[in-house]
């Protein structure tokens, strides 16, 4: 499988020359000869689902935004990849920036946007330099600007550097941040596709989603759908970390099983140890036990196993991992990153982490685990955005799947 990471294997893949020699910007040229609405239709037919975590059909987003009469329209790339365990966008941003630029230019043409922003995670300074250089080169070569490829299409692209807030990966908080305000989610509706950046129709897609576009346009929806599963078509980037022999980013078809990823592609568990647990899609997805290895990694099958595809950031734990500490570490992350707008997330998650901290320091009480479940239940489904819910389902996942260990009765002690 070599579509999203294809160019990386070529020398100087970050350079325009390297990208073009390996077939880059052909899709843009093809797209500009198509009708914008045909591109939107093609994307909708392909069933491409957003790669940021929620899996919303990209084609539907584009359709709504392109049909909104308000002008101008904006295009935003969500490159605020900040969830622990997720680093699948990094290779595109750092090694294949032109793929993103090409994908965005095609998308902009399709929906009728003249301005685009890449909202880049504040902790990716290398990517910032690489992207900015790539943008300058693209302007010079006519892939960006007022008259792209001489075909009368105007698209300007800017990099906006975040300041280290996880919440700004939430699309409406991202828009607030882009507008110079405090990063907090907005009330929906109106949705960004109708009233987003500067209250104008705005399409926000993940880096990887945009990276799928050039290929999709090149081969067409029919060929694209041959990859992956019928409900989750296309290639997917999985970033694998933790106790495996070959951690890294792997491009595989949607629906590849956990077993194949861990044992075939990542070379199995480190030091021949036993697998204990896997977080399948970044820390906001519930942890899974070792007996779920045959679960196909896609939007439809993971929920059947009590988890979610999320961003596709796998974290693998072997038999020696102290899952209570892992749970504390993850909860502390959510406490730190809660924006503070809504009560359950702001106060509830902090409460969870303070209980877990006490438990980890050996001062746990028998009723603590029940309290964790109670608090999680009180957070879940009551928050303003998905951040607090994420924290709650993660704690629930740990307690439900590894209750004896969470209660301090069994499991490895570090």
């Amino acid at each position: 499988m070599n579509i999203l990471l294809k160019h990386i294997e070529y020398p100087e893949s970050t350079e325009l020359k390297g990208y073009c020699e390996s077939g880059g910007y052909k899709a843009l040229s093809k797209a500009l000869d198509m009708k914008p609405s045909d591109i939107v239709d093609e994307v909708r037919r392909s069933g491409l689902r957003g790669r940021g975590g929620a899996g919303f059909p990209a084609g539907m987003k584009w359709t709504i935004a392109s049909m909104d009469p308000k002008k101008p329209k904006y295009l935003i790339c969500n490159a605020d990849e900040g969830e622990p365990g997720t680093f699948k966008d990094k290779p595109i941003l750092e090694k294949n920036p032109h793929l993103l630029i090409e994908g965005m230019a095609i998308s902009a043409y399709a929906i009728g946007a003249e301005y685009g922003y890449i909202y880049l995670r504040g902790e990716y300074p290398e990517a910032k330099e690489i992207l900015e250089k790539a943008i300058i080169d693209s302007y010079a070569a006519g892939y960006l600007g007022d008259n792209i490829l001489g075909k009368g299409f105007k698209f300007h692209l800017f990099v906006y550097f975040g300041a280290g807030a996880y919440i700004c990966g939430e699309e409406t908080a991202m828009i607030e941040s882009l507008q110079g305000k405090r990063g907090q989610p907005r009330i929906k509706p109106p949705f960004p596709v109708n009233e987003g950046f500067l209250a104008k129709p705005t399409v926000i897609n993940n880096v990887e989603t945009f990276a799928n576009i050039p290929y999709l346009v090149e081969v067409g929806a029919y060929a694209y759908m041959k990859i992956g599963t019928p409900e989750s078509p296309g290639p997917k980037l999985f970033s694998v970390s933790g106790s495996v022999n070959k951690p890294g980013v792997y491009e595989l078809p949607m629906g590849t099983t956990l077993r194949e990823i861990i044992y075939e592609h990542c070379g199995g568990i480190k030091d021949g140890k036993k697998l204990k647990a896997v977080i399948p899609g970044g820390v906001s997805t519930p942890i899974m036990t070792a007996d779920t290895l045959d679960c196909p990694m896609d939007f439809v099958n993971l929920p059947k196993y009590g988890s979610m595809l999320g961003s596709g950031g796998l974290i693998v734990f072997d038999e020696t991992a102290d899952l209570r500490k892992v749970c504390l570490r993850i909860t502390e992350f959510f406490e730190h990153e809660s924006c503070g707008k809504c009560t359950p997330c702001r106060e509830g998650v902090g409460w969870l982490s303070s209980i877990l901290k006490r438990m980890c320091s050996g001062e746990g009480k028998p009723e603590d685990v029940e309290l964790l479940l109670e608090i999680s239940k009180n957070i879940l489904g009551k928050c303003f955005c998905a951040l607090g819910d994420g924290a709650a389902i993660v704690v629930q996942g740990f307690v439900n799947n590894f209750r004896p260990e969470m209660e301090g009765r069994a499991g490895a002690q570090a």
Partner: protein
Amino acid sequence: MITITINGKKIKLNKPVTILEAARKSGIHIPTLCDHPMLEPFGGCRLCLVEIEKMPKLQASCTQQVTDGMVVWTETEKVVEARRAMLEFLLVNHPLDCPYCDKAGECDLQDNTMKYGPAIGRFKEGKRKHPECYDDPIIVTNMERCILCSRCIRMCSDVQGADAITITNRGNKSYVEPFSGGRFDCEYCGNCITVCPVGSLMSRLHKHTYRPWYIEKEVETICSFCGVGCSFVAQIRGDSIVRVETRPDLGLNKGLLCVKGRFGFDYTVSSARLKSPLIERNGGLKQTTWAEALSHAAGKLKEVKEKYGPAAIGAIASGLCTNEDNYALQRLMRSVIGANNIDSTTGFFYGPAQRFFEDIFGQGATLNPMQGITNSDGVFVIGADPSAVTPVLGLQVRAASRKGIPVVTVGHMSGLKRFATCSLNPDAFSEPALLNMLISGLMKKRPVCGENIFFEDIIKKFMLSTSDNISDACGLGKSDIDKAVDELNLMTNPAILIGRQVVQRSDASVLLLQLSVLIYLLNGRIYLISELPNDQGLVDMGCQPDTLPGGRPVFSDSMRKRYEDSYGAEIPSAQGMRLMEMIQAAHEGKLKALYVMGENLLLNLPDTGYVKEALLKLELLVVQDTLMNETAELAHVVLPACSWPEAEGSYTNFEGRMQHVKKAVHGEAMEGWKIISEIAKIIGVDWDFLTVVDILAELTKVSPVHKGITYSEMDSGNCLWPYNGEPLRDIAKDFVLPDTKLIKREKCSGRSYLSADQQLFHSGTIGRNSSALNLLMPASYARIGSALNEKLSVKTGDTASISSGVKSAELDVIIDPDIKGMMVFVPNTAADKGALSFMKWSMNKDFKNPALDGNEIEISKLRSKAEEVAA
């Protein structure tokens, strides 16, 4: 039509609203914390979660819009449990210090917890610590109690437009703090305190002085500070106002207040408060009895009248006093003394400006409802910064701007700087040149429509006569003018706000005519920025030398007869003296007695040295006031009048809305109107006024515009111009074109001019006796711009010497880069260093008001702050 069902009750709605709104309309209570009727929905506290059929998750009713057929349940087990959970979460980091907290008893968190919350909390870990902050003189912040509902932040940025506070940090470490750090650098409207649901933002002035349940009485009344006439509830304990509170549905301010209204009311209990009558004896004022004081004043008035004739007596009315007081004073002057010598400082700006516009556009042309500003499609402001002198009116302009309505301002206006789509800041006194360019630019795009042939004829003549005089000498580039013309050309029914500075100058008639042309071309509605609570009422009560109550001219025989019949006395047909004419006459020894009601002439008149000389020459100076002041010190008799909360009456605001001022506390002094009727009685005319109701009854009988008005009608909130009366519909036909040579002035660059600074914190009248406002108001200062600063090389805080032809003094300097050219702004708040005390004046020949433009002054650096500290 949308039909929804809440708790089994069918509700029909005309337009989609939130579930919360729909529930409230049908009397179903859903508890909330972050929601506030004055603010946009936020959805943060999650207390208002409700269950909606066919939706798996609970939804926040404050943000969820209703859809047709929606079925909502607000009291299911799931909802009740969620509510309890949210309150438990809110108390995780809350100190639970209710017994110590001033908010206890009126705290939304406390009330909701008692009603819906868990009885026992399960949180056993450490709470967030954040010491209470006393860095600010007015606002105490306690961030341990804060529930981060952000009501204060939304109020400050989305409604007040001050953007002074923010949430610092993230998540459960968040807290509210001013951008400036500990001390607030803000407008001190205190609207954040109003909306804070807990004890996090509290007034320091009232800290630990009362508990909500100590309040014995609440009185809905009208603020006494400016011409907007905001409503509020005065909360009384014993004989003092402990606090004023607003309600989102109350009055035309709809819950908003400004710094003066909210914090300044303590002037009524200041140490300068006059409580017993004083009489001048052996060169000093001594306490005396009412009987002696009244008979002395009355006797002396009678004596002067007999000796020199009624024309030797004058009276000064006041926009700080009620309609009833002012009516009584003019009745005393016209029917008892027999002179039309009655005027006030309202005659410096408000009166003449109104008269000018009424002559062109008809009586009542300047009386327009305030909401019209946000409902218009453009705003043009000139002559005063409404956000400083009439802050709640200023908020309307800000709200208009926020709605995307174009706002054009002329002159230095710091409070509207961020809200104007086009700020024109011309060189000193070059407004006529600027307006000429705007008008001719606009006329090219939008020719006159032919609606008013008479006025269009005047426009033609006027534009012809000014065309030669147009110079580009206003210091603005062509692109600025073009942009402003384009903005103006977007407007079809704009609000035109006009302030003091366009009238207190020698070319006022030119400016007013230019503004009339602009108003005509734009189809604008006029708003006069009224600085005193009863400017309009004073005019309506006939406290002008040429008009009778109801705004009818004194020279009209039929009108005069109407009043003469009612008063049983003859009223002279000739116009009386204007205020500055009275001062001149006193100086020349022609005016012998002056009755001053509620006015400090030695602060609010220019060249106070001259005024003092004039007052010292009087045979009788009676001062009827509530507070001791520089003028009262010179008086022969000082008569203490009831202060604003101590007496019943009414104010008429800048919209022409008559509002009921209620008695809230008992005072030791006498009602103003009563003092006047006692004097009339001693002179020998018995008035049958027992209460204000009798005065209002007489007024409504005799004034052609105030027919049948009652206090209960005022209480309804809709006692608006033209009441039930007969406004004059005649438009003057004998219009005299002003001298257009006035437009062309010599270049003023390179010289420093003095102007009165418009102060938000107080205007120097009653406010300077408020200890709360004095905490905020710096001592007198000179505010200068960058150009002058370059010449002087001073820093903020350095001391400068300023001197005019009539006075010199030392003042601390404040640098304000937005001030253009060499202007020096000094507030008129301190009697010894007030801006007016430095000013020379000339009599404006059209309006007989003091023209204050072109007051050149010398300014030089005396010493720097650093030197002072070292010394």
